[in-house]
């Protein structure tokens, strides 16, 4: 047996991890995959509704795309601050990590505030789960479903970040804990890339 075949066999023979990662990270990745599939299901259902619709509203008439772009800017920026926090935590720079975790949480809170404003604005204009003034009824349902489910993830992320910040300030979080919070936060950003493109732009 060659060396590479032997080492592959060793990795899969039990007792060692084929992914060469800690159990926390592997579990976080499994969570991300399953949660990602949930969003994939929602987006597939949205695509289905869109194909069925006789009159899907023109997004440019319903949304202010500049406003949605600003929300995207906030979320992308918060992902960069989170990556910086993870990097600082790995290097043992606790105060820098804490500062960037707090910046990330602030970015998440700003995003949520902007989304709340967008929701209240559209509700005032007549958007409902089962009806809306612009076109096919499914439009309102999928708008609230997709952005609401994503917003819930952002809210959860802000809570996780606040907890991580408190624990970091107390010196009770290891670098891996900050990395796990970071993985979740980047996943929230990743999902927004799909929602932004498929729901708001296409």
């Amino acid at each position: 047996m060659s060396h590479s075949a032997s080492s592959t066999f060793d990795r899969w023979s039990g007792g060692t991890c084929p992914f060469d990662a800690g159990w926390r990270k592997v579990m976080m990745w499994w969570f991300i995959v399953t949660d990602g599939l949930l969003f994939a299901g929602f987006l597939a259902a949205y695509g289905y509704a869109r194909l069925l619709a006789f009159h899907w509203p023109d997004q440019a008439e319903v949304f202010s795309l500049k406003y949605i772009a600003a929300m995207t800017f906030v979320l992308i920026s918060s992902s960069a601050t989170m990556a910086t926090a993870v990097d600082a935590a790995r290097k043992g720079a606790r105060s820098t990590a804490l500062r960037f975790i707090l910046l990330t949480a602030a970015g998440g809170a700003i995003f949520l505030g902007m989304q709340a404003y967008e929701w209240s604005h559209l509700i005032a204009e007549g958007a409902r789960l089962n009806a809306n003034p612009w076109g096919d009824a499914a439009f309102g349902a999928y708008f609230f479903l997709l952005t609401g489910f994503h917003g819930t993830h952002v809210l959860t992320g802000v809570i996780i970040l606040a907890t991580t910040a408190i624990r970091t300030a107390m010196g009770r979080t290891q670098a891996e804990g900050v990395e796990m919070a970071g993985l979740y936060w980047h996943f929230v950003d990743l999902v927004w890339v799909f929602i932004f493109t498929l729901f708001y732009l296409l």
Partner: protein
Amino acid sequence: MKSYWLTWLILLVFTVVMLWADSASLPRSAFVVFMLAAMLTKASIIGANFMHLRFERATLALTVVVGLLVTATILYVLIAPDAARIHEMAGTYGPR
């Protein structure tokens, strides 16, 4: 740390270009292809650089990426033709 802010800049440039494409009067098929390509590129950049998948062992990266992409593709490929068929039938027999 520098590479994270470079990634941030690249993502912003992609977002601005996507918004420009939305306002430009591109043919619909070219617009859709461009948007899907830009979306997948942005997602790959986030996964590779922010989520550090490019530094992980290939078995982990492949399990995550292939698992997600294949299952999501199955969802679209199996559902979309069905939706198109129903759409066609609705067109034949009138609105719901």
